[in-house]
């Protein structure tokens, strides 16, 4: 029985598989952006060859949903809104992106005005019915819409439906009865929280993606049908869900790629005994950073795609524009900048020799000798050192710097951008990065990690196995997981504990029913209970993990105390206040996955270390440096910087003052030497 994970990226599709006997293998194929499912299906066949019929589960992470939004390739969706609010996707929140810009363009909505119709109905802020639903008029308007626009999916977002969903439900039933083949997405089930623009934007995005995601997943499922393999899809919340019936929730696939890497890090950290860690995933164009405390990453209630808000539980990952392809340039005022423009894969950094002339971070690293041109990507691509130097000297001339000086400056700025991302998720949320281990992966993460760690005062770095395929590895170890939410504003008083208990009971019942459909027994489900609370009058909530046992035994005072403590950490001391209120009840349900596959990543004790002496430029000096092949390093092998550890998908830089050891699971553990 084979379990195979596939992560589709913009350039490459990565695969990792494992079987019951502990065999593990990886594979990489070029992505097929015109139809990403082709690379997925072919990749599986290539990776496992004649053992295809042994494949039982396929775990998939894909940017298909994200790209469809960015490139506006979703379906012709229509939107039904409350009478009087037809223009809400255009008005948005009334904000200008840059207050000093001449041209002001709001993000373009996914549904244009001709496909938005108004429904005669109104529910008040307290959930009462102000105007009854006019079904007769709705039928006529729907018919006209269908004939005129032929929409491929319907989104429904009516005012205050998070409080009373009766009208939305009635409208949805009517649409379904008249047009049974159309996907229908209802705001009160997608995102039952207040703020109508954000809720509508999320609902619209779900409808916009539904047919496309549905088709995409069906294509893959069909290819898997002959062998009876099940398809699971990665969610932005960091769990996987069975693909069957996921179409209408395609919106939950947004931003799932970075989430998978975080999940892999969480599992590896569990084995290594790290409770507090910060993940650093650096690829070609950007760096993704996430803080993990008590073994779990934070989850945020909303995110943004191409300027459009999406209220989906998303792993709280900060993204900064610093990657291997980030370009160094001098702005109008004479300041050296790095990124956010990236050389991408085409033309790529100058050293790729594909016509790139502007120096990228990778060029700087090649010039400094940290990346050896002959071993890059395991030798599958020879880099042109000369081209890197040329690009750097042209830039250096404009700043009166030598090419090596400008290379060091580019690396320093890229590192600072990365550190800023780390501060964003740690310092700015009340956590001290010094107490965390830095888990570095992606092609470029292990290269920059030690430099960023120096900057942040972090003294422990872990480079897990397969850092360049780490998101794919994350899919193998991700749990089946879903986040359930309910909004009901309530000031905390004596009776609140009972309400909390019954709200969670409702959510648990929903979860148990859904997981049963997935073939998961009730006893195998693990729950986490989270409240989103705030001081009365505040507009933003703080997430509070709660223990339902304590809610029952200690009552409301437990809720208030837990909230005040969390608020003090993340936001700071509160003023005198009018009490606290609960805004949202959130239940995380998961079926933990067996992560034993990680055990098989350990290198063999028989390995004989292979190192080649060389030189690198570091902080203005030429230094001796050993270059190791990672797959030759046995368990417990240790080394000291300056050293570089090479492998086909990534490169680890160990600067002077740092030591490295091959530890549990074959992870490279870097430690700052005392006193340095």
């Amino acid at each position, binding site marked *: 029985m084979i379990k195979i994970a596939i992560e589709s990226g913009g350039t490459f599709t990565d695969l990792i598989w494992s079987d019951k006997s502990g065999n593990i293998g990886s594979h990489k194929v070029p992505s097929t952006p015109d139809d990403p499912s082709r690379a997925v299906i072919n990749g599986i066949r290539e990776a496992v060859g004649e053992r295809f019929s042994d494949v039982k589960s396929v775990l998939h992470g894909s940017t298909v949903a994200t790209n469809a939004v960015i490139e506006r390739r979703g379906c012709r969706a229509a939107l039904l809104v409350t009478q009087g*609010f037809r223009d809400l996707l255009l008005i948005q929140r*009334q904000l200008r992106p840059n207050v000093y810009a001449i*041209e002001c363009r709001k993000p373009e909505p996914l549904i244009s*005005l001709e496909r938005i119709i108004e429904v005669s109905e109104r529910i008040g802020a307290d959930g009462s019915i102000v105007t009854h639903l006019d079904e007769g008029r709705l039928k006529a308007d729907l018919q006209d819409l269908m004939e005129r626009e032929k929409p491929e999916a319907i989104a429904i977002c009516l005012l205050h439906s998070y409080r009373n969903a009766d009208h939305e439900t009635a409208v949805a039933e009517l649409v379904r009865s008249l047009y049974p083949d159309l996907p229908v997405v209802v705001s009160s089930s997608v995102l039952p929280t207040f703020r109508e*623009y954000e809720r509508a934007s999320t609902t619209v995005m779900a409808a916009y993606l539904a047919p496309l995601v549905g088709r995409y997943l069906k294509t893959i499922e069909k290819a898997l049908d002959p062998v009876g393999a099940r398809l699971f899809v990665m969610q932005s919340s960091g769990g996987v869900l069975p693909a069957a019936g996921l179409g209408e929730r395609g919106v939950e696939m947004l931003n799932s790629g970075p989430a998978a890497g975080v999940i892999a890090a969480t599992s590896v950290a569990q084995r290594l005994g790290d409770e507090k860690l910060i993940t650093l995933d650096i690829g070609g164009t950007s760096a993704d950073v996430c803080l993990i405390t008590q073994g779990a990453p934070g989850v945020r209630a909303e995110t943004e795609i191409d300027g459009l808000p999406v209220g989906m539980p998303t792993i709280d990952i900060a993204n900064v524009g610093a990657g291997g392809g980030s370009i160094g340039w001098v702005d109008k*005022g004479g*300041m050296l900048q790095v990124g956010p423009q990236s050389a991408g894969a085409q033309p790529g950094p100058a050293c790729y020799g594909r016509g790139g002339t502007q120096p990228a971070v990778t060029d700087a690293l090649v010039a400094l000798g940290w990346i050896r041109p002959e071993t890059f990507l395991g030798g599958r691509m020879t880099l042109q050192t000369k081209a890197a130097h040329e690009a750097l000297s042209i830039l250096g001339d404009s700043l009166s710097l030598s090419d090596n000086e400008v290379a060091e400056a580019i690396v320093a700025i890229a590192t600072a951008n990365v550190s*800023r991302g780390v501060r964003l998720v740690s310092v700015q949320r009340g956590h001290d990065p010094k107490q965390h281990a830095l888990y570095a992966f992606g092609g470029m993460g292990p290269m920059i990690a030690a430099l960023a760690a120096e900057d942040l005062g972090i003294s422990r770095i872990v480079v897990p196995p397969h850092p360049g395929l780490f998101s794919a590895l994350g899919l193998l170890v991700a749990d089946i997981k879903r986040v359930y939410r309910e909004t009901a504003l309530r000031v905390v008083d004596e009776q609140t504990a009972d309400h909390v208990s019954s709200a969670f009971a409702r959510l648990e019942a929903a979860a148990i029913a859904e997981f049963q459909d997935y073939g998961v027994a009730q006893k195998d489900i693990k729950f986490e209970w989270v409240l989103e609370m705030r001081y009365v009058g505040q507009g933003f909530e703080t997430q509070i993990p709660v223990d339902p046992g304590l809610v029952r035994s200690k009552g409301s005072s437990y809720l208030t105390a837990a909230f005040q403590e969390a608020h003090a950490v993340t*936001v700071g001391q509160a*003023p005198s206040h009018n009490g606290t209120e609960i805004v949202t009840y959130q239940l995380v349900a998961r079926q933990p996955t067996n992560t034993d596959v990680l055990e098989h990543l350990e290198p063999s004790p028989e390995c004989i270390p292979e190192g080649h002496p060389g030189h690198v430029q570091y902080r203005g000096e030429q230094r001796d440096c050993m270059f190791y092949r990672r797959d030759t390093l046995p368990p417990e092998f240790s080394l000291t910087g300056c050293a570089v550890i090479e492998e086909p998908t990534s490169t680890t830089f160990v600067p002077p003052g740092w030591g490295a050891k091959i530890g549990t699971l074959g992870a490279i553990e870097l430690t700052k030497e005392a006193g340095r």
Partner: protein
Amino acid sequence: MTLDSATFNIISNGLHSVAQEMGEMLVRSAHSTIIREARDCSTSFLDRNGGIIAQAQFCPIHMNSFGMVFQEFARRYDLSTLRPGEALITNDPYSGAQHLNDILIFSPVFYQDRLVAYSASLGHHIDVGGGAAGPNACAADIFAEGLRIPPLRFDVERDFGAGMLEQFIRFNVRAPEQVIGDLYAQLAANRTGALRFVEMLERFGEEDVLEAGAAIQDYSERLTRDAIRSIPDGRYEAEDFVDNNGFDQAPLRVHVAVIVDGDEIEVDFKGSAEQTKGIINCPLASTVAAVYGALAVVLGGGDIPVNTGLYRPIRTVTVPYGSFLNPSKPLGVRARNNACHRVYNAIMRALSVVAPDRVLTSGHDTTNAIGMGHLGHDRYRVYMEVVGGGWGASLGCDGADVVDGYVGNCSNVPVESLEQDYPFLRIEEYGLRRGSAGVGKYRGGLGVRRVYKVLDDEVSFNCYSDRFQIPPWGLFGGEDGAASRFLVQRDGKEITLPSKTNFSLKQGDRLIIETAGGGGYGDPLNRDPALVTRELDLGLITADQALQHRNSRNN
């Protein structure tokens, strides 16, 4: 500059994030909808001499106010004797602040026992007392506009909480929980700024950080001078008008002369209207902030970091004392944003002759401050929102629909949030105001139409607005946008409201707010015909407007 280029980049980005994080902290911990939802607030970080190093770009009009207020504090107090735990506070328009609702707090930042910088925040407060819950359109002077906090040096621990300052403010405002809660949010933001700045000093060393702070200002100055040099030398004059003072119908003139001389600029407002009764006078700090803001758009277009360096090449800003752009005490100033917008408009118009690619037509360019108060059984509820309108058009770009005017960037309050917080209101309609944009090769932005249903008696409507009489103008053949109008429908009749008013609403009333559309840019006949057809089909433009695009084509 002795700093190497990497360090300069790293520190200047770091300083920018400090101000940004302060701003986010302020919004996240605020209590009033006007700050937490509409983001009517700003944060700034100043060097020890009051030079602005970095600021969070929330509302442009707040920006340079920090510098002017700081100078007033420096004049009154020996700031070198400030101790940790002390802070500075004011809202006085005659001491460099804006209008009374904008309360500024400066917190000194200490490093190794020395005062090294100031973190500062400005919050627009939902209520500061005065004659109305919201703008008091018939205020005869500043005393009728609310509580005036003189430039005060205070000790946070001693004077807040049960202390004199907090209690004094608490007793003089209609929504004390929100106002005091927001003041604490400002202090929290300042504290965050101080903490982060000290961390930077520890990381990079004081000398490098302060040097980078100075270098950012030089950097902006350099870019600004380059931009000025690209405009031909000369004296460029223009005017625009505020509708009236809310009492009589006389328009108030803003006259500007922009003198471009090499890489420097002088701005002169001689010929502008005299100061007047009512609330539309504009304190000097606001007039100067509007000049800086307008030039930041024309010269920088969003690409120059806005700090003291950007202001340096502006040699002088001459504003005659006693004009409504530099009034004498104690005139009312609540609606000063109307005049500020005309300062922007006049500068745009003056420079349109020589820099047609860098100016905008007039948008609605008004702060449509919509306030309502309701005294319920339990407490006062004060509602305040800035309702957007159409943005100006420019070479290559239609004006955006429904955004705040130049001087602010307030977001709307979600209708679902508004109706929860203000149960005496329901929104029946919130949409684009069709047909309101001025036509042109590039059209102006559309204004908004919003209908409030009033659900209880004793609701007072308090507002100020503008562009009711003098509509937003177009440029180079583009037409004017539609003027704004406010109406009340009561018992089958329509009552037309003036732009600055206090009006008693009754249960069952429908209050209709229709804001202006932006002026068009360029000849309407040159507009892309496909766009004209599409917008006509969608009803965004009227049949008459479509004809203006097509006339000569058919002839």
